[in-house]
Structures are given as structure tokens and as C-alpha cells.
């Protein structure tokens, strides 16, 4: 029963191997296997979620070596939510890859896709800092290869940028791990939190440095200012299903800040308690301004969506910076919303690019094209959701985060700054998305014949599927927010996490 924890990690790993071995069979078999393993993963994730809701959290000690000596995996409400989110998003992205034939552009797409999920799920489930590093490397190596899927100059160029900056990030991660191990003598997250709570005063500066080094690494993954310059180029040049899957990658960074920093430097940490939040808040506020400027000045639709991902990440950073259970609860809701919507938006941008013929997704005036009403309606829906307007899920998430700023312990200039920047940038995003929509669908050269296209309507199904999740988030907002509130309470309970993982160790 306890082995359940490993299923979301083992299924993609097994899937990638079996797909690799089935290369001699037909391409169709590979596709069926690939989709089959994702469906299996979704079922396993839902089953794990039900078990967690039913019986509480699961702690898996690898090889039955008790923490802190062995490697621990932790299946709790926070990790299982993100694992389920990954698998739902991956299903949409893979469906689109099969429908649009973009998995045929290069070799081994399906194998790499599953290895990527393997790394992401592992990062969400592990309870050990060095193991987190290893899973980061797995997901990064798969993402380097996926990013280059389909070749082309632009991909090679941004692939190098993406890879080099992440290699530097990995090096900093190793320095941070080394520093923490050198001072505290452990790498288990729960044990680290316990050691930090008993930290002698002369060591606190070293541990604080290591914590901020970790923040650089996670900030790089989450694309926090000034470490976001790789994101727009990478996301807009990757092929659409890959970009859609990458929407979860920035959330791996956000998750790591919530889990690692929230546990290590929680209320038990004495003078280091939540010392990182002003950094996250300030940098999040800068990021949201720059992301909006990026949205307003993009030349292509994909670049615009990439900057929208950045804007959603900065809202999450601000929520972490506010640092109350209510803001983290809002952040959890907003993570689900923004991942799904960003993924779907990338797919839609790709369809529009195909429909618009030679103009692709460059934002300039062109002829009419086929299926304008359907694609236009979907664009309208996605634009509203991405701009966090009612009635879709983004509005609720942003509202929860903003309303949590008022009763928090932040001083009033900060609260005013948060409200002003979040609302003004929201307006900027609405204006530029309106402009994009007008340009794409109204301001066309009507005198010419519509651009021919052989796309069938079924290409829109994955996009509708992802949007349906966003709608469901609103319909079931009440139980979901109750659930995210439980997650937030759990995140703030570092003592609970420590005593869960280190059974028999805590006095």
C-alpha cells in the first residue's frame, strides 16, 4: 500500500523505457502506448489523491532506511495536487502533439516526454534536497532535448541560452547543498528544518547564505527577476506541445520555494524565520511590471503567451511574499489555473499560427482564415482567463491573493504597492490581449480570399479539454478552495512535517 507513493514516478519511467523499446513497431503503436501511460498516470494520481484524502499523508522510506539516513519520498496534499496537475496538463499536450503530428518532427518525442514527467513528478515527491537536485537534472536534461525537438536555428540558439543558464543554476544548487551539508550534516528536508531550529547563532549567517543561494536556483526555474531572460525566447521557440508542458516547469520553482524555504525557514527557524519573503515579494513586484511590458511589446503571439506565463509566475511570487495561509491558499489555486491556461494558450497560438498560413503567429495584419469563429471564441475565452477576469478561474485566484494582502502583517506602503502594481499590470494585459484579438480576428484584409487550411476541427479538442479544467475550477471553487486552505495550513505547520517524516526521531 505504501508503495503507492512511487507510482507517479515509476509509471512515466517505465513508460519511457517501453516506448523506447517499441521503436521497431509502428509509430501508431508508440502513440497509443504513450497516451495509455499518461491515462494510467492520471488514474494513479487520482487514486493517490483519494488515498491521501482518505488516510492522510504517506511517507515512503526508500529501501526501508529510516529518515534521515535514507531517501524519503513524501506524498502529501501539496505534492499530489501538483502531480495530478502535471498529468492532466501532459495529457492535453500529448493529445495535441498526436493531433498536430508535431511528435513526428524529430526522434524520440514520446520517450523524452515521459522522462520529462518522470523528472517533474520526482521533484514534487522527494523529501531530500540532494534527490531534488537529481530530479531537477533529469527534468532539465529531458527539457533540453524536448526544447530542440524539431530543430531550426531559433531553437538551437535559444536552446544554448536555456542550457547554459540552467547549468550555472545547477552549479549554484551544488554550492548551496554543500554549504547546508557542511553546517548541518544532513540533507533530508525535515531533518534540515529540525537542525535549523536548533542552530547556534554563529552559524546562522552561513545557513542564510545557503538559503538565498537556493532561492537563486529556484528563482531561475520559476523565472524570477533578474533571472527570467531565458524564458520568453525558450518558450516561444519550442514546439507547441513542449511549450505547453513547460508551463508546469516554472511551477516546479514556485513549488520548491514553498516546500524547501517554507519548511526550512518556517516559524521554527528563529531569527531566520521567513527571512526570504521580502526578497521574493520585491522581486515578484519587479517581475510583474517587466512581464507586462513584455506582453505589450511582443511581436508574435507565442512570445506574448510566454510573457503571460511570466506574469502568472510573478503573481505567485507576490503571494509567497505576502506569506499568510490565505495567500498561499490563493497561490495554490492560481498555480492550477495558470498552468492549465498557459498550456492551452500555447496550443491555441500554434493552431492560429498554422491557420494564418505564411504570416504564422506574427502579430501583423493578414487575410482572413478558416475556422475564425471557433478559434476566435476560444481566443476570447483564453484571453479572459489569462487576464484573470471574471467569470473564469484566474479571477478567483488573483482575488484570493489580493484580499490576503490586506490582513497580513505587511506595512501599508507594501500593500498599496501590491494592489497598484497587480491591478495596473492586469489592465495592461487586458489592453494588449484586446489589441491582439482585434488584430487577429477583426482587422483582417477582407478583400482577399480566406487562407486555405487542411486542419480539421479535432485539433481544437485538446485546447477545449484544457479549458474545461479551468471551467471546472470555477464550478467546484468551493471544495477546491477548502482543499487549498488545508494545503496552506499544512505548509505553515513545519513541526507537523518534521514529525511526519522523522518518525521516532523527534523527542
Amino acid at each position, binding site marked *: 500500500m505504501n508503495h503507492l507513493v512511487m507510482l507517479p514516478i515509476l509509471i512515466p519511467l517505465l513508460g519511457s523505457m517501453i516506448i523506447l523499446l517499441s521503436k521497431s513497431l509502428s509509430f501508431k503503436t508508440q502513440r497509443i502506448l504513450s497516451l495509455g501511460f499518461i491515462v494510467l498516470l492520471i488514474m494513479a494520481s487520482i487514486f493517490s489523491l483519494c488515498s491521501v484524502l482518505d488516510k492522510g499523508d504517506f511517507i515512503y522510506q526508500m529501501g526501508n532506511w529510516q529518515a534521515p539516513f535514507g531517501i524519503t519520498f513524501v506524498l502529501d496534499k501539496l505534492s499530489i495536487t501538483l502531480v495530478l496537475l502535471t498529468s492532466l496538463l501532459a495529457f492535453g499536450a500529448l493529445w495535441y502533439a498526436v493531433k498536430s503530428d508535431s511528435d513526428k518532427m524529430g526522434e524520440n518525442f514520446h520517450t523524452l516526454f515521459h522522462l520529462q514527467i518522470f523528472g517533474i513528478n520526482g521533484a514534487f515527491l522527494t523529501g531530500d534536497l540532494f534527490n531534488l537536485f537529481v530530479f531537477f537534472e533529469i527534468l532539465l*536534461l529531458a527539457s533540453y532535448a524536448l526544447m530542440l525537438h524539431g530543430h*531550426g536555428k531559433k531553437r538551437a540558439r535559444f536552446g*544554448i541560452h536555456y542550457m547554459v543558464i540552467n547549468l550555472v543554476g545547477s552549479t549554484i544548487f551544488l554550492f548551496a547543498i554543500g554549504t547546508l551539508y557542511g553546517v548541518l550534516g544532513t540533507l533530508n528536508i525535515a531533518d534540515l528544518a529540525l537542525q535549523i531550529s536548533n542552530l547556534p547563532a554563529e552559524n546562522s549567517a552561513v545557513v542564510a547564505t545557503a538559503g538565498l543561494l537556493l532561492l537563486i536556483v529556484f528563482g531561475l526555474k520559476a523565472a524570477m527577476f533578474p533571472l527570467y531572460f531565458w524564458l520568453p525566447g525558450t518558450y516561444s521557440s519550442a514546439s507547441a506541445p513542449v511549450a505547453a508542458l513547460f508551463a508546469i516547469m516554472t511551477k516546479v520553482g514556485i513549488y520548491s520555494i514553498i516546500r524547501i524555504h517554507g519548511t526550512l525557514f518556517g516559524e521554527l527557524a528563529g531569527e531566520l524565520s521567513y527571512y526570504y519573503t521580502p526578497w521574493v515579494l520585491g522581486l515578484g513586484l519587479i517581475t510583474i511590471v517587466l512581464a507586462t511590458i513584455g506582453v505589450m511589446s511582443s511581436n508574435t503571439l507565442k512570445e506574448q503567451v510566454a510573457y503571460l506565463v511570466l506574469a502568472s509566475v510573478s503573481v505567485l511570487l507576490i503571494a509567497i511574499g505576502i506569506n499568510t495561509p490565505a495567500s498561499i491558499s490563493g497561490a495554490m489555486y492560481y498555480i492550477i489555473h495558470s498552468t492549465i491556461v498557459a498550456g492551452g494558450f500555447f496550443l491555441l497560438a500554434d493552431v492560429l499560427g498554422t491557420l494564418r498560413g505564411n504570416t504564422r503567429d*506574427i502579430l501583423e495584419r493578414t487575410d482572413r482564415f478558416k475556422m475564425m469563429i471557433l478559434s476566435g471564441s476560444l481566443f476570447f475565452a483564453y484571453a479572459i482567463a489569462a487576464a484573470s477576469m471574471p467569470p473564469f478561474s484566474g479571477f478567483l485566484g488573483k482575488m484570493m491573493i489580493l484580499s490576503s494582502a490586506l490582513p497580513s502583517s505587511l506595512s501599508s506602503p507594501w500593500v498599496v504597492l501590491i494592489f497598484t502594481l497587480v491591478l495596473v499590470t492586469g489592465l495592461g494585459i487586458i489592453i494588449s490581449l484586446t489589441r491582439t484579438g482585434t488584430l487577429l480576428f477583426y482587422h483582417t484584409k477582407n478583400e482577399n480570399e480566406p487562407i486555405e487550411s487542411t486542419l480539421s476541427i479535432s485539433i481544437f479538442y485538446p485546447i477545449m479539454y484544457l479549458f474545461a479544467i479551468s471551467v471546472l475550477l470555477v464550478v467546484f471553487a468551493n471544495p477546491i478552495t477548502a482543499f487549498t486552505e488545508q494545503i496552506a495550513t499544512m505548509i505553515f505547520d513545519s513541526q507537523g512535517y518534521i514529525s511526519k517524516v522523522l518518525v521516532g526521531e523527534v523527542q
Partner: protein
Amino acid sequence: MEILVALIVAAFTTGGIFLLLKGRTFPVALGTILLAYAANLFLFSMGRLYINQPPILIEGVSSYADPLPQALVLTAIVISFGMTAFLIVLSLRARYEMGNDNVDGVDKNTETDIEEKTNEKADV
């Protein structure tokens, strides 16, 4: 010995960062290699530096060398090795795709701007 190791780590890091800031892919690849060396050496020394000590705690032994950082370094070396191989292959690929080895794909000497061509050939 500690000062010597610290200086070596510092030298590797300095060289690594200097090379990373270069504009061509080969020095950048070398820079990441040097940085990885620095990180590995640093990680290794975090178990404290001992000479002639047993790596395992057995009865009657009070002082021992910590084996865990060595295991961590081994993992880190393998990973950085694989990453370096991938980066070099990617650099060669980019050299082939873009016609020069500049990290931005723009050769300062010939001023061949790839922007226009990439927009035409943009993602399929």
C-alpha cells in the same frame, strides 16, 4: 590544506565565470566545466578534510572521514559529465544551424543577422 583547497575552488570559480561571459560557445562550455569542477571540489570538502582516516564508523574509532559527500560528488560528477557532453553536441549543432559559433548566432565580423531568416523559418 584547507586554505589550499579553498584557493583552488576560488580559482576554478573565477576562471569558470570569466569563460562563461565569453561570446563563443566553446569558451562557455569550458566555463561550465570549470564551474562544475569548483562545485564538486567544494562539495567534497564539505565533509571536512581528513587524511588517513577510515571512511566507516566502527567500534573503537572516534575520528572518521565522512563518506556521504564523496557519494554526492560521485553523483554530481556523473551528471555534470553528461550535461557537458550534451552541451558540446548542442554547440556543434548550433554551429551547423547558424553558421557561426557565437552564442547569439550573430557573428560580429560578418554581421550576418539571423533574425530575418529565423522569422521566416519560425516554428513548424
